[in-house]
């Protein structure tokens, strides 16, 4: 007889943000416990000339292990991955990450739309997309696509965002599953797959 297995609903949580989102992330990360059987991917717009990479910043803010993103690195549950500057971040069907230096999308590389759409194609209903603060429209199309393919979408409450344009734009174009402030997002991520 086969034993019944616990099927975890979500395999991947992908977080996108632009201006003001680093601030939100820096509040979420220190309180984050071990990721319950899912991987967390962070895609933020940042000037590529900043001295400290986003990866390094994330590393010092959390006890959750951060895996260096290199071409075709395997996505494993329990780890955080940060999209490198100047590349689009994509997802392969065999749970590997792929990089792409093609044209900027929404004036951005990495583009949140590009990563959200690629993640949705691979993970479908096993995906949570979270959109944080920002002052451009990147992310909205990606969220719509995640929703279309059965994933769950969360938008930061514009009232709690340093730059409300990005979450407002998303909310104006779709109905997210949840609209949460920073504490609410932290709480949500903590309870995924429980």
């Amino acid at each position, binding site marked *: 007889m086969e034993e019944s297995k616990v099927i975890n609903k979500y395999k991947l949580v992908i977080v996108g943000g632009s201006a003001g989102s680093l601030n939100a992330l820096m509040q979420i990360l220190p309180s984050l416990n071990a990721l319950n059987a899912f991987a967390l991917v962070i895609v933020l717009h940042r000037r590529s000339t900043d001295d400290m990479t986003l990866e390094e910043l994330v590393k010092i803010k959390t006890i959750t292990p951060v895996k260096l993103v290199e071409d075709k690195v395997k996505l494993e549950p329990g780890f955080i991955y940060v999209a490198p500057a100047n590349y689009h971040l994509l997802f392969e069907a065999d749970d590997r990450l792929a990089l*792409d230096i*093609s044209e900027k999308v929404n004036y951005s590389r990495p583009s949140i739309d590009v990563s959200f759409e690629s993640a949705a194609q691979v993970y479908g209903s096993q995906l949570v997309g979270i959109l944080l603060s920002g002052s451009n429209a990147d992310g909205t199309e990606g969220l719509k696509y995640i929703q279309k393919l059965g994933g769950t979408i969360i938008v930061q409450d514009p009232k709690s965002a340093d730059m409300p344009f990005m979450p407002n734009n998303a909310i104006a174009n779709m109905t997210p599953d949840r609209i949460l402030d920073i504490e609410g997002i932290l709480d949500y991520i903590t309870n995924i797959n429980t």
Partner: protein
Amino acid sequence: MIEDIELETLINDIYEYYGFDFGSYSRASLKRRVNRLYQLDGFTNFYEFLSKVRYDSDYYKRMIDEITVNVTEMFRDPHFYKIVRTEILPLLATKPFIRLWHAGCSTGEEVYSMAILLKEANLLHKSLIYATDINSKVLETAKKGIFPLRMMKEYSENYRESGGQEDFSSYYIANYGIAKFDDELASKMVFSQHNLVSDNSFNEFDFILCRNVLIYFDNDLQKRVINLFDESLATLGFLALGTKETIKYSISTTKYKQLEKEKVWRKVR
């Protein structure tokens, strides 16, 4: 958006009708490029798109131009060029003749960057840069050495960050929105079409650059290409990849010594 199965059909048909093998390309990126073209050209039916590719060879050429990624810049990743300037060129300088291969050179911005470094190291006269790409159209641009003038501010900053001390504008003549680079730089370049998927080694080199090309390939093809570079690299020669690429899944790393933290490997045996 096209489905995974449709992408596989397209890959098979391209191979069958034109002999070009996308089978070992990274699917995530290829799918995105094909979707972009599909939407750009206003297709709504996949089979319409497929038969256009099959029977209209001009459209097939357009498709190849559009789905191969041709984004590049001069002195991309200035830090890399600083390492070339300070650590690699001084070691190559002792050779009587320096052969370089820039694989996947696109429109040539990085080839001209390298020629500038060679010139400043007083090595250009005894160097030859073979610059290849799969796409013949971009090679035509590369040969001309003409780039948009509006990019020069950014390139000049990159140049300076890479340790450049000269007046960057002395390398080109500005005219009607274009910057035409000095013919002396191009005199040491040889451009030709080369397909990393199917073509073989064609010379022995002291320095091979292939930056941000392997990211579009799956691991099997990456192995093939790294081995092709290995066959083409002289002992004590250098191989440089993009900042997020690695040889470690493709070849025994005992043959190669990595320059600390850089995506540059020296063939030590």
